[in-house]
């Protein structure tokens, strides 16, 4: 019998295929109470078909799997719109202190004064950073922050008996969660065009904003990595029409100490703590998407909001709250990490974060603009959107370039987003990366451009040296296999 070697010698059998009857990885203590009667056996199940493996197998299996990943700890990860910055280790450690990790969400307020104080301080800091002082940390990710913000906008109009406002105006460059959240909030999505500079087409917005407008959802900086130069005019148009301005703050990493959204006429925004505030993305969450609003709107915030009173810190429900958007108080241990990050950087450090993020993105843009088209030919903020349109004409798609980058140990940029840019490759280096890393990336991107002509098959077949080559995603969707089963 020959022993077959999987990619890199990795044994990728699933847990259930490793299971051996009687093997175990864990022992529970014996019961120390007198034996109690069991319920009627008709209620009971025989077995739970879970794997039976040893403790070493558990550790080795998951450790080996982890090595199949790219991550911030191991790779440059310039995934646009995702702000893949360094995730400080101290933040993980501090959020796991027993006094933070082992407290129950329904403990009386007097027994969790430290936890509520932390939430209150983080609320204050986020309010200061965005210039929007009403803050709820309840939302569990960016999309939930958007949804909370839209609920607030609707509650505001309802409270003014202005309920006919059922339209959300959303730019064509918006992230998919914006229209999806708007639909959940029962709003009709009307798209406003971008102009050839990547800005909101102000004349188009003027035509669309009217007495049906509930809210205008604007990503700042935009998903093109650009600051909207007509922002003051835009917020005025929306306000004059009686609507509110919602800012998607996923790109807040460009704005710390650079500009406050509240100063620009924004009424509501959210921020992704798992982007700007360094909390680890975890391979797809958990996140945290606090929602920030003007003073006037604070009474509508989702619950809870941490408040300082004469008798100490309490978790309160705002007067006209839009209610509970999840089980408890939001992602507490993510909030703790973000708070640690803000404390570690402080006022000067946070400013420096955005300034360096902006310089790094512009540096990459400047060094690649002769080889790659730009979505907009002007200075960018914290990310630059390249287009592989020129390479496409030479027979290689943005996708191929993205996959080829993986061969160099560099994670791909965000591809094909925003949708208004042909063959988009959105590059966000963040402030965490050194100039050497940026120079290496630039050199690789230039070499890949050469390969478009000299060795296009290298791009078409990329990646070459990863645990798998390109996957058949069409079959995966057509004939879904979504779990282990004894037959497959």
């Amino acid at each position, binding site marked *: 019998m020959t022993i077959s070697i999987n990619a890199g010698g990795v044994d990728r059998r699933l847990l259930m295929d490793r299971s051996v009857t009687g093997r175990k990885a864990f022992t529970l203590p014996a019961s120390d109470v007198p034996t109690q009667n069991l319920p009627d056996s008709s209620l009971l199940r025989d077995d739970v078909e879970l794997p039976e493996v040893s403790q070493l197998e558990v550790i080795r299996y998951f450790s080996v799997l982890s090595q199949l990943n790219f991550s911030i700890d191991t790779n440059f990860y310039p995934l646009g719109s995702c702000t893949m910055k360094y995730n400080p280790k101290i933040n993980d450690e501090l959020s796991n202190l027993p006094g933070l990790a082992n407290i129950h969400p329904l403990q009386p307020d007097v027994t969790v004064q*430290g936890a509520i104080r932390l939430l209150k301080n983080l609320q204050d800091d986020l309010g200061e950073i965005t210039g929007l002082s009403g803050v709820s940390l309840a939302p569990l990710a960016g999309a*939930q922050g958007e949804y909370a913000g839209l609920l607030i906008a609707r509650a505001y109009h309802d409270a003014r008996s202005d309920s006919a406002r059922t339209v959300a105006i959303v730019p064509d460059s918006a992230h998919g969660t914006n229209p999806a959240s708007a639909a959940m909030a029962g709003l009709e999505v009307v798209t406003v065009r971008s102009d050839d500079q990547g800005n909101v087409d102000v004349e188009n917005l003027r035509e669309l904003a009217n007495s049906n407008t509930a809210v205008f959802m604007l990503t700042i900086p935009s998903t093109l990595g650009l600051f909207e130069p007509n922002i003051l005019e835009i917020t005025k148009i929306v306000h004059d029409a009686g609507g509110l301005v919602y800012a998607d703050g996923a790109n807040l990493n460009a704005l710390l100490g650079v500009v406050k959204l509240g100063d620009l006429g924004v009424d509501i925004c959210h921020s992704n703590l798992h982007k700007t505030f360094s909390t680890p993305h975890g391979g797809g969450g958990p996140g945290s998407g606090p929602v920030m609003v003007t003073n006037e709107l604070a009474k509508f915030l989702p619950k809870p909001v941490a408040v300082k009173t004469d008798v100490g810190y309490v978790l309160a429900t705002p007067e006209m709250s839009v209610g509970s958007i999840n089980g408890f108080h939001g992602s507490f241990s993510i909030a703790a990490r973000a708070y640690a990050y803000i404390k570690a950087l402080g006022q000067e450090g946070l400013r420096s974060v955005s300034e360096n993020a902006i310089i790094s993105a512009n540096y990459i843009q*400047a060094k690649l603009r002769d080889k790659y088209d730009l979505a907009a030919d002007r200075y960018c903020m914290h990310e630059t959107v390249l287009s592989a349109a020129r390479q496409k004409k030479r027979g290689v798609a943005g996708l191929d370039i993205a996959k080829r980058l993986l061969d160099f140990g560099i*994670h791909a940029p965000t591809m094909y987003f925003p949708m208004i840019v042909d063959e988009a490759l959105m590059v966000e280096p963040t402030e965490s990366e050194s100039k050497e890393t940026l120079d290496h990336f630039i050199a690789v991107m230039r070499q890949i451009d050469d390969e478009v002509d000299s060795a296009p098959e290298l791009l078409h077949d990329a990646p070459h040296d990863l645990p798998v080559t390109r996957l058949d995603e069409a079959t995966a969707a057509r004939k879904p296999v979504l779990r282990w089963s004894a037959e497959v």
Partner: protein
Amino acid sequence: MASSAHTSPNHPYIPSTDSERAEMLGAIGVDSLDALLEDIPAQHRHPKLNLAAGLSEQELSTVFGSIAAENASPSSGYISFLGAGSYSHYIPSTVRSILQRGEFVTAYTPYQPEAAQGTLQVGFEFQTIVCQLTEMEVANAGMYDGPTAFAEACLMAARVTKRTKIGVLSSTDKRLSDTLLAYSKYQGIEIVEVAADATDIPDDLACIGIQSPNFFGEIEDVQRLTKLAHDNGALSVVHVNPTALGMFKAPGEFDVDIVTAEGQPLGVPMAFGGPYVGLFACKKAHIRQMPGRIIGRTTDTKGRTGYALTLQTREQHIRRERATSNICTSTQLIGLMVTVYAATLGKQGMKDLASLCYQKAHYAAAEINKLDGYSVKSSGTFFHEFVVTCPSAPPKINEALLKKKIIGGLDISDRSESGMLVCVTETSSKADIDRFVKALSEIGVSA
């Protein structure tokens, strides 16, 4: 000059030095950062940030040490009998150890499957474990938490049945129905309460939303309620406690359509309420209406097995305002914890754990029931939570307990007269339970 790009001292999280910044600005062709910021209205540029100065790591640890010290937890000598959606369980070393793997912790959502096979295979294992626990056909890779999973499941039932009235059983946790309310408020959905003993339901319900064990800790007759739903063209949506599934029949045995759960009990710290992970499983027939990420198995160009996100046309990044949900970033890492936990406990461990919780909770209930003035209000079978009717107001009793370093059960007098919802898991020793019972007895009517 307001712009301070060249003057800020270096920080451990920011590698660029002054000379490198100057060099980069030179390459960009500008002489200051401000030249890059001209699109920002000048009067609003570089606002004052009223925040404290940055701290060293050592100082930061001190700050957090004092925050943590202001909280009452087992490490400060407290014992607790709170449950109601968040549960104290022992977390095996394997979970904590794997959670140290930065390759898992610091990766993004697996948009490039070739560079994310670790995350993806774990997600596939997670889906498998959710299916095995619930005995359902398919599961997604996780929702934000239990209540949002339940809310999304009810909304999914409305899409599947094309009906707009959602029934929720009266014994359900308000945290579930409140979240459903916030999720459905502007979607033309009406929520109606269904009595737990109903033998008849309106014929236009999209589903009956059932929690079992219910808010009061008791096992519902899921089989009967599911049949009742089906007889009326509705789906059954059942929210379970995953720990109870080590012992009680799985919803899949009862022809349930959609199953949700709070995944927190499976190896996730209580952490003052989050982050957790919502488990979500359903019948295969409904898969295209399922919210959230789904991971599928496939092959690469060389025929090797690999995993990738699949059925993405349901999702916001493709379907936008017509997506099944707005969810994007979810809870993959918490799903990893659940997966390692389930692999560690395994077949025998999940059984033993459920039994231990059951034994201890029933012992505690029997002892409390013996006390003067206290009675356990239980009509059926409970798992590890039960309602105690107290001789005086539960908040008063809890105040007195707190003086003895005991965090009592949840005051539910708004739902059950003088009711306290008590939870006992394997983390309470017999000595802890006895201490609690003795304290209750001492406090009695005097509170």
